[in-house]
């Protein structure tokens, strides 16, 4: 099972990185979303895929009966998903504003802040 997940994570990373090296900022944001999901699945996989019970402690016992699934990676992923959702929502609004302001979604058109000779953004 781990190997299947490893391949899926690899595909997500590869696709994400490929999309991010494209010039279109829309594809860049999609790439970032895939990269984030790849990272989440990676945490899930390295936290060991145990087909076990939820880690409830039975009444009277001090620890849960094995086999139990490790809940911590899932808690981490949950937090990361929420953060990723917020950040990606912001990024989507940002690329919309960028498109409205610059009139293009090509990063090669967005070089005015890198050139030396103009006064990039003085008020």
């Amino acid at each position, binding site marked *: 099972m781990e190997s299947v997940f490893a391949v899926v994570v690899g595909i997500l990373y590869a696709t994400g990185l490929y999309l991010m090296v494209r010039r279109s900022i829309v594809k860049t944001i999609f790439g*970032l979303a895939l990269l984030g999901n790849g990272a989440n699945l990676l945490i899930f996989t*390295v*936290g060991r895929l145990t087909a076990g019970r939820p880690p409830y402690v039975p009444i009277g016992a001090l620890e849960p009966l094995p086999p139990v699934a490790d809940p911590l990676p899932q808690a981490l992923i949950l937090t990361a998903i929420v953060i990723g959702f917020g950040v990606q929502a912001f990024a989507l609004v940002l690329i919309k*504003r960028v498109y409205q302001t610059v009139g293009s979604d090509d990063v090669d058109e967005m070089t005015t802040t890198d050139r*030396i000779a103009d*006064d*990039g*953004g003085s*008020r």
Partner: protein
Amino acid sequence: MINLLFLPLVIPLATAVACLLAWKNQGLQRIISLIGSFLLLIAAAVLLVTVQQDGVLSVQGGGWAAPFGITLVADLFSALMVCVAAGMGLVVAIYSLADTEAEYERLGYHPLMQVLMLGVCGSFLTGDIFNLYVWFETMLIASFVLLAMGGKRAQMEGAIKYVVLNLIASALFLAAVGILYGVAGTLNMADLARMLRESESSGPIPVIAILFFIAFGIKAAVFPLFFWLPASYHTAPMAVTTIFSALLTKVGVYALIRIFTLVFFAELAAWQPYVLAIAGLTMVIGVLGAVAQDEMRRLLSFHIVSQIGYLIMGLGLLTPLALGGAIYFMVHVIAAKSALFLATGMVLRLTGTTELKKLGGLYRHQPLLAGLFLVAALALAGIPPLSGFWAKLALIWSGLESGNHYLVVAVALLVSLLTLFSMTKIWAAAFWKGAVVNGATDTPLPLSRRVYWQMAVPTALLTATTVLIGLWPEPLYALCMDAARQLLVPDAYIFAVLGVQP
């Protein structure tokens, strides 16, 4: 007393909430944010004094014993950084009174600044790597909005680069955290430190360390991962640029120093030459980029990169003297570089431009401003007796003592010269040379007395700090050296968190 550790988190959070409650009343928001910043500084100062007297403090959120609970730790290094950050927060809050446009305030400038401070303080105080990730994201989302707020074209272009590069860093950070958990089964830094000291450096540990180095390296803007910084920082309003330059990259450096001295010490020791090479290249490329620029804000942005190189050099040399020097350097560069940015903001308000070709002769109209800028510029270059001199002296002394790092020492000295050149160029062009015909300084824009002093006082405070810690370096120097010793021998840190001797 242990609740002291929560105060630097609770105060900015409460201030942000109070600002949000006063959403319609910008005047009230300003007052709330000033009061909040002031309280944060007091809390941070008390925390620093307490840590100095009682040693490392730690508290487990919710009462769950480490390594299961949410751990907050303050050793001397983190307490000092919280204190410096709080000081910067207050200075920038005062400056914002004059510098912030009404539109920014309507869009929530004050609460966002407080959330930024919350993220910064949280990153300094947390004792858990996953929480560090969460605090980084808190800080980042506030900085994204602050950077993109004005909606101007340059800001949009800067923001897209800043956002994308930082999100890549976050994804790498998250992946590293996940693999580390898979290998070690814990994310508590003290617990990790204890565990990895006993085991040998092998298997996936160096890979994880590299992932962390890249993730924090992007945030700290080290060579070759710094390109987002000069492309984006100069597009924001001056107060925002100042707080970014003072705190955000430094949080990256803090994370590098913290994780690599505490958790990945063996890897760091093995990679010493490479870390020093990265430090040298960061210094050189940053200062060369600055020399090529003709616009004050971009020039200073490149200097941020160059100064980061010195901090990484302190980490790479890995002696108590070098690490202490790096911490001292951090305090110095936050004060000096922020003073330069704030003074540049005044130039922008007075003349409407920061292009060196259009400026000139400001010394005649603004002797005080010219003086403040000159002192801060010389401090940055490291002219004795200002603060930069002692910081660089410690680093270079340590490099010479170690006996086989002469190259990086030579590079550091050369970059100091180039920094001095760049600083004299900017000062001579903006303040000293005659006014340009049809330039921007023939008729300085009117500035009301109140606005003038609201901008001049914060600038002067920071300049005074560099002079003070330059003329009287001993207390801060001793503090930094103690902090460095705590970093290199983390027994007290581990004991404070886990309650067992390592």
